[in-house]
């Protein structure tokens, strides 16, 4: 160690990979090393997020690229996420360069299990630094770890750190700098002779097929292939080397079995035996072991009744706060964007550019930012729950209930978040390791009734659902309808989840196996970074799409602009102005009457303006689309105006109210409580004079909005998270189909009962 290579170009970027078990504080170490300069991408072909950050270390004359790899208990794996770890560490094809240094992060309070993975990493033949994290928690639990003794046993540098407080990070940087110029680790576990012979033989076969790998990498691949039957590396190598390789593997495994060893257990037996031999030299019990605080808390918090009760109260509190804290901020965002729009309306000359600014760009940015407060508060709670270790308890408690729905305990938070907004819900699904469960969760998350649906329900319920008291006044029909709209998506999600698991997401269920980490105080730094990161991600992913689609919808609703409409309305305005001026010109009109005339004039002018924008919209591309699709939406009880509003709402469902406002000549600044819009809708009639809207129509519109995927941001997020177009297309198709069929059934049944 510490031996300098003679030729060392100082500013080559050195790649440093962070690895470790789950719950070892790996992300916290990553954040402590890099700050918030990281960027996220994806590994090719898999849906695994690649987090990396480049940083300059002028003090040590180094440029480092730090890569945070997914947490895993072992290098031999079956899941996608974990599978990339060995590939990334070996610098396999498409995984980027082989790291110059591997930093293995180890939980000092749980050394035995953590060292299993560490010994696997030490055998890769690369320079390794062990970061002994959470030494404070270990000491609190009465465990003292002798870092020097551990370094001697492992043959690499061991740096004690407390990443959440930033302690020991400088020492870790030093150790990384030294490891870059140091020797690769030459740690090697002694397998029983019969296994060794087979491993050596397999090493030779692997080296033959892939001459580029180092001896260490061939041995690691041999272990992870030979001793993990049916695993990821086996299928990868069989694909590369052909079926002859599969036969070779089977023969070698048979010989191991004949020699009396268990193929799947031998690696664990060898490594744990070594660890158990070494641990007494490294770990000392400084305090009498007593029941830890975590265990005491868990006696209560994982209790089937009390634990669930605490969980429900906690969730209720979180959601209450999400609405309470974000509501004023959302109002403020809303108000400021309307104000900006107003200022521009009054300063810019009328025309396409002004309309684009006000109704396209400003409205677009506003509709993104209005959701940001809610999302930030939501992420704040989730980050705290995750960082303190409670999330795993919640997953534990809810697993048996979620299993009834064909889901996993970890699907609960993403789905719950989706009641605020599906975008953070889909992002939160990243914590689900099983790919199949994660995909199902992502696909049903948009069915949860998000907050953008609420205004539609409020408007239609207030206008068309009679406030009839039911069950002797316990609940009225309006409240019942709202409740039904809120639950319909979640109820429908159950059969959809089961169906997805039987069709496009077939596969074996992953058995539930979840570590409950030691409780700790959430680190403000970790929480801040997570909230910042996800907030930024929302703005970038969802924001750009909402923005782009808002502009497109604006254009569809704005063009074409035939001169005849302008001319007709200008003539009306001119006539009105002339009339007003002649009325006011005669000198003997009293002041009171003048004021009245002026007010009437202003009102009439704005009525003409609104009628003009309504006329434009009706013949715009959007309006024509609405008319074109009228035969399609007619069986749902809708006229072309509702159809137009619904088409506009495919970008973002909340725009429907503004669009309906324009269609009914009320101007765009209508909201769900506007009496004007309500009355106009009530007054709207078909050609034969029968009213368009009634209870069945209102129900069918609400059911459609409850189930339809009218949110470009959600689809963009699904695309980004799954790295494929197949899933967003499927989500859009099944939800739109479902919404149509359900709205049709609702209307057709409801008209027969009213």
């Amino acid at each position, binding site marked *: 160690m510490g031996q300098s290579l003679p030729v060392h170009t100082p500013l080559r970027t050195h790649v440093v990979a962070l690895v470790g078990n789950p719950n070892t504080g790996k992300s916290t170490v990553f954040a402590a090393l890099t700050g918030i300069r990281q960027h996220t991408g994806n590994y090719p072909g898999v849906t695994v997020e690649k987090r990396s950050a480049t940083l300059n270390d002028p003090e040590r004359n180094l440029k480092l690229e730090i890569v945070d790899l997914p947490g895993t208990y072992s290098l031999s794996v079956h899941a996608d996420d974990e599978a990339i770890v060995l590939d990334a560490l070996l610098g396999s094809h498409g995984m980027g360069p082989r790291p110059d240094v591997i930093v293995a992060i180890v939980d000092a309070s749980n050394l035995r299990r953590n060292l*299993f993975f560490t010994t696997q990493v030490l055998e890769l033949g690369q320079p390794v630094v062990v970061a002994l994290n959470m030494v404070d928690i270990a000491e609190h*639990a009465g465990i003292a770890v002798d870092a020097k003794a551990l370094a001697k046993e492992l043959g690499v540098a061991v740096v004690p750190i407390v990443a959440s407080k930033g302690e020991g990070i400088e020492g870790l940087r030093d150790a990384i700098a030294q490891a870059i110029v140091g020797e690769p680790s030459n740690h090697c576990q002694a397998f029983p002779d019969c296994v060794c012979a087979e491993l050596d033989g397999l090493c030779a076969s692997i080296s033959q097929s892939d001459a580029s790998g180092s001896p260490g990498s061939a041995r690691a691949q041999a272990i992870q292939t030979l001793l993990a039957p049916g*695993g990821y590396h086996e299928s990868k190598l069989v694909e590369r080397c052909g079926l002859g390789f599969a036969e070779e593997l089977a023969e070698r495994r048979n010989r191991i079995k004949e020699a009396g060893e268990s193929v799947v257990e031998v690696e664990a037996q060898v490594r744990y035996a070594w660890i158990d031999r070494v641990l007494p030299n490294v770990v000392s019990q400084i305090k009498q072991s007593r029941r830890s605080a975590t*265990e005491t808390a868990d006696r209560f918090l994982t*209790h089937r009744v009390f634990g669930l009760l605490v969980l429900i109260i906690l969730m209720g509190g979180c959601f209450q706060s999400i609405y309470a804290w974000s509501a004023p901020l959302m109002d403020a965002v809303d108000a400021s964007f309307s104000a900006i729009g107003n200022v521009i309306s009054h300063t810019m000359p009328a025309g396409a550019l002004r309309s684009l600014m006000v109704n396209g760009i400003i409205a677009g940015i506003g509709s993104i930012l209005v959701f940001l407060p809610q999302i930030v508060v939501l992420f704040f709670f989730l980050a705290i729950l995750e960082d303190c270790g409670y999330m795993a308890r919640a997953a534990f408690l809810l697993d048996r209930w979620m299993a009834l729905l064909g889901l996993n305990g970890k699907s609960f938070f993403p789905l719950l978040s989706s009641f605020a907004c599906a975008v953070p819900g889909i992002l939160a699904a990243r914590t689900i390791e099983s790919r199949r469960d994660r995909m199902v969760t992502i696909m049903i998350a948009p069915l949860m009734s998000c907050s953008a649906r609420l205004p539609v329900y409020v408007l239609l319920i207030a206008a068309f659902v009679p406030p009839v008291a039911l069950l002797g006044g316990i609940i009225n029909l309006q409240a019942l309808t709202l409740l039904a709209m809120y639950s319909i998506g979640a109820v429908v999600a159950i059969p959809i989840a089961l169906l997805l698991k039987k069709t496009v997401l077939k596969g074996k269920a992953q058995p*539930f196996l979840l570590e409950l980490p030691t409780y700790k105080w959430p680190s403000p730094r970790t929480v801040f970074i997570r909230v910042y990161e996800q907030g930024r991600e929302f703005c970038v992913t969802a924001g750009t799409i909402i923005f782009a689609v808002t502009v497109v919808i604006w254009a569809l609703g704005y063009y074409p602009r035939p001169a005849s409409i302008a001319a007709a309305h200008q003539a009306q305005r001119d006539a009105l102005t002339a009339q007003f001026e002649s009325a006011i010109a005669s000198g003997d009109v009293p002041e009171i009457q003048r004021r009245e005339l002026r007010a009437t004039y202003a009102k009439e002018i704005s009525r003409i303006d609104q009628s003009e924008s309504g006329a434009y919209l009706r013949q715009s591309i959007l309006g024509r689309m609405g008319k074109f699709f009228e035969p399609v939406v007619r069986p749902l009880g809708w006229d072309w105006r509702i159809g137009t509003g619904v088409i506009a709402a495919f970008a973002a469902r909340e725009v429907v109210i503004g669009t309906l406002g324009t269609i009914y000549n009320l101007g765009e600044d209508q909201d769900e409580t506007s009496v004007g819009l309500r009355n106009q809708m009530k007054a709207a009639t078909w050609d034969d004079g029968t009213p368009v809207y009634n209870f069945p129509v209102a129900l069918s519109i609400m059911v459609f909005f409850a189930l339809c995927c009218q949110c470009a941001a959600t689809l963009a997020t699904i695309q980004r998270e799954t790295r494929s177009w197949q899933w967003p297309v499927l989500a859009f198709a099944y939800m739109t189909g479902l919404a149509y069929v359900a709205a049709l059934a609702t209307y057709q049944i409801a008209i027969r009962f009213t």
Partner: protein
Amino acid sequence: MRLTATSIQLEALRNGENGTVVEIAAGEATAKRLADMGFVRGGRVEMLRSGRPCLVRIGQTCIGLGREIQKVILLDREDLTLDSRESD
């Protein structure tokens, strides 16, 4: 509940009882995963909260295990101990 002459399923343990792993009677993928997490022959497992899923301690780790897994972890029938803390 499957009992053989010498082994007992983890599922059968009551809160506070612990035992020694004698066999993982699972498919290769699950067996490998469990072995790597420390469920190896000779390892001690303590039941913290029985049920589905159950909560066990192995070494310094608390792990929640689903029903399928509780059935495949077999413990030595002769070597079960009742935790003194729970016996009162």
